Every structure is written in C-alpha cells, then in structure tokens.
C-alpha cells in the first residue's frame, strides 16, 4: 500500500519535473527565436557630420548642423520587418530650424541591421526638401531599450533655403536611442 503511494508520488514528481522542464524550454525557445518586431517604437536621434556643397563645378565640405530628431514608428509588416516612421526634426549649433521627417525602415530579423529611406522637410525659418537614406545597426537590451548607430545621407533638392544652382548632401553619423512602446 505504502509502496503504491510512493510510486504514485514519484510519478507525480516526474510529471512536475517534465512540465517544469517544458516550461523552461518554451521560455528559452521564445528568447532564442527572432523576437517579433515591436508594434510601436519611439526613437531619439542625434546626427552630426559633414555637408558636401556642390554647384558651379565646385565641391566643398563644411560641418553639418547638429540634427536632432524625435520619431515614432509603427510596424506595417512582420515579414519582411517593415515599419513606417514619422517625427520632428530640428537643426542646431550654427542655425536653428525645425521640420518633419517620414519614411520606411526595413529591419533584418537575423542580423542587427536596419535600412531606412524617406524624406525630410524643414519648414521654419526657411523651407528645405530632402531625400534621406540610412543604414545602421542596433544593440537592444531585454528591457525594450536599444542603442543604434546609423550612417545617414540627406540630399536636399529644393526649398527657399537652398541658394540658386547649389546642392547640399549631408553625410552624418547618427546615434539613436530606441524605446519599444509595445
């Protein structure tokens, strides 16, 4: 009688161990697999670099303004991982201007690489329209925070800030702080 009870107790313990092991395995598998992209994400970006001035057959470089951008993004596709982003932009250091930016960002599910393309529009005090592309990588912590580094190119093509017959292409190194909202 007591032997049967012992066997039953042993089986119950074995089942409990199995369930616990399975739970740990499921948890590990969830962590090891490629994390699903966050639905909403916020990012604060600081960019600085050089502006390549062109026109009249001459090219020259000058320091770019310090660009500060606060953007929010929403995932629009899980495979491929594409998110649409939009936000506000400000330029500072040697000038003060504000504008907006918007575009799409593609993130690799296996590598910490991301590519983005979009446009930027400065609207005060002058207007300036530009096309923007960036490539970079992010290191994310488990708490929904991430630190990103990107190389960003912005080609300004039109606007009242642009001198006649001149072009500006900004090449900037960008440091970004990412916050997963959901």
């Amino acid at each position, binding site marked *: 009688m007591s032997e049967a009870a012992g066997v039953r107790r042993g089986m119950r313990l074995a089942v409990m161990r199995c369930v616990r092991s399975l739970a740990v395995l499921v948890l590990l598998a969830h962590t090891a697999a490629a994390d699903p992209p966050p639905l909403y994400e916020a990012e604060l970006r600081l960019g600085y670099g050089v502006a390549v001035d062109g026109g009249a057959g001459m090219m020259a470089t000058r*320091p770019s303004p310090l660009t500060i951008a606060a953007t929010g993004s929403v995932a629009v596709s899980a495979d491929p991982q594409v998110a649409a982003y939009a936000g506000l932009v400000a330029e500072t250091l040697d000038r003060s201007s504000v504008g907006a930016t918007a575009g799409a960002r593609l993130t690799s599910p296996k590598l910490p690489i991301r590519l983005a393309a979009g446009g930027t529009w400065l609207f005060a005090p002058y207007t300036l329209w530009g096309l923007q592309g960036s490539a970079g990588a992010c290191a994310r912590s488990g708490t929904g925070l991430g630190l990103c580094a990107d190389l960003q190119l912005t080609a300004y093509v039109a606007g009242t800030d642009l001198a006649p017959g001149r072009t500006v292409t900004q090449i900037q190194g960008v440091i970004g702080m990412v916050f997963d909202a959901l």
Partner: protein
Amino acid sequence: MRSNTLLALLALAIALVLWACDRDVCSRHSDCAAGQTCTSAGICSAPAADAAPTEDASDGGAP
C-alpha cells in the same frame, strides 16, 4: 567588436573630413550670417538692397 571598429572608423572619417572642411563656402542661406544670403557662386554676401545706397552715394558725389 566588429561594430565597435566600424563606429570608430566612422568617427575617424567624420573627424578627418571636418578637419578638412572649407567653412567659407555656402549652399544654404542659413549657412550665412544674419542679413546675408548665399549666392550661386557659394559665397555669402549682403542682399542687393544693401548695395543700392552705395550706388546712390557714388551718384550723389559726382558733379
């Protein structure tokens, strides 16, 4: 480790280009000091309205 190296190289490249920058050339009006505009030659200059009094002054000085 590899991303750190890339970041360091990127920072070095930007530092080198910044060091070699030509700050006298402009392409945006906001590159220039207040009251100046950027010309198509890439030079900051005072707008034409400021040049008018100089012409008037030279005309006035003629007999």
